[in-house]
């Protein structure tokens, strides 16, 4: 069973503005209207620990700043049947016709491995088998249809100078999904 913790800054995120500015000024992506950055922790619990997963995750968020800092961040926990992203965490802006997410994960996920080590060796939590960390970029666009999907794909992977941006394919993987579908989908699909 996987629990997903989506974390974003409570205040305005300057990184998102940098990405928006770079895409528009340097990459000529005039269709992009808004960018958001969401940190994504995925905690893969052992099957026998499924019932404890919610309590452990809530405890990590309440008693540590390993996943998120309550003074700085807000977050949602996903992974339970029927749980999508609560209204208010992300909603498409009024001027955006489409929104895609680009989920970027390091090929060698050192942040995830590091947290897994901390959970096991320092906190004694043995119910979590794997931790992975990704950055989700939500790209809102005023264009529609195929052009928007293609543009999201082009933005996702840096292939040459000013051709692609968010993931360097030599050390990172990028997945592209329609944002509405991604956030509505259950994390633990059968």
């Amino acid at each position: 069973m996987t629990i997903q913790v989506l974390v974003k800054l409570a205040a305005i995120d300057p990184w998102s503005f940098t990405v928006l500015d770079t895409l528009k000024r340097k990459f000529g992506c005039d269709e992009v209207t808004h960018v958001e950055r969401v940190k994504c922790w995925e905690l893969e619990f052992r099957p026998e620990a499924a019932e404890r997963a919610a309590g452990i995750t809530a405890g990590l968020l309440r008693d540590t700043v390993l996943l998120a800092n309550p003074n700085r961040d807000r977050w949602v926990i996903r992974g339970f049947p029927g749980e999508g992203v609560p209204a208010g965490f992300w909603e498409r802006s009024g001027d955006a016709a489409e929104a895609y997410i680009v989920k970027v994960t390091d090929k060698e996920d050192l942040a995830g491995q590091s947290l897994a080590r901390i959970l096991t060796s320092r906190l004694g939590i043995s119910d979590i088998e794997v931790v992975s960390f990704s950055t989700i970029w939500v790209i809102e666009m005023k264009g529609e249809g195929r052009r928007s999907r293609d543009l999201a794909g082009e933005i996702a992977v840096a292939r040459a100078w000013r051709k692609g941006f968010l993931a360097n394919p030599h050390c990172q993987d990028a997945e592209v999904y329609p944002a509405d579908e991604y956030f509505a989908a259950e994390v633990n699909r059968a």
Partner: protein
Amino acid sequence: MRPHICVIQFPGVNCEYETARALETAGLDASIVRWNAPAGSLSDYDGFILPGGFSYQDRVRAGAVAAGEDVMGVLIEQAALGKPIVGICNGAQVLVESGLVPGIGAQSIDLALAPNKGMGRDGYYANWVFVRVASEPRRSAITYGFKKGDVLPIPIAHGEGRFTSSEAGLFDTLEKSGQVILKYCTSDGGVAAGFPDDPNGSERSAAAISNPQGNVVAMMPHPERSTWLRQVPDGLDSVWSRKRTESRGSWDDLESGGPGAGIFESIKTHIEERV
């Protein structure tokens, strides 16, 4: 007339002044120029340095935002003229993210400087390490003053310094073509088997890689922090450290050239011979 080097100051870099001083000490003129200077004002320089630091706060990925700036388009043109372009640390990350290094395809991005690994934790690492000159002296703009096999103590300070590629065989190609310019090594020049001799898990222990022509070099170590003997710490297993210890009490000796000075002197020689 002394060759004139442009030190590009992106927002967030922090090594531009000491880099300019190191260049001047090596007999070059240096001007610190903001990244958004008019493109036409850059073509008169004889070479370019992208100094270390944290351009754009390393947002998205170290070097990725700066790599998209207009000035990199100018550097792509200047590189084609054979002028030396050296990226140090964050500057190396910018060169890799812009495709100038290794420069095999038309600005295709064939490498990454990925997060450090191998030290038992993730994150930033700063220390003195040893590098070995792995190419022939005239192969790159930074090695004219050295012999192949020379060993230099030099500082590193980075969180994302691991040269890597998903392209099978790329590092074989780079090694065969002499584009792996510096390699991390042991104090006696031996192969760095792992941390701390190889501080970041770089493929082939690469510390500096050039384009095929050798005039564009991405190097992770900081030569401007080892330009003067006084910068070398006591206690390294190196002749440089012993020399530094013996120089105590003599300001002139302490102000003499350190192990990194040869990098900047090489850039001067490269310009005088090739540009």
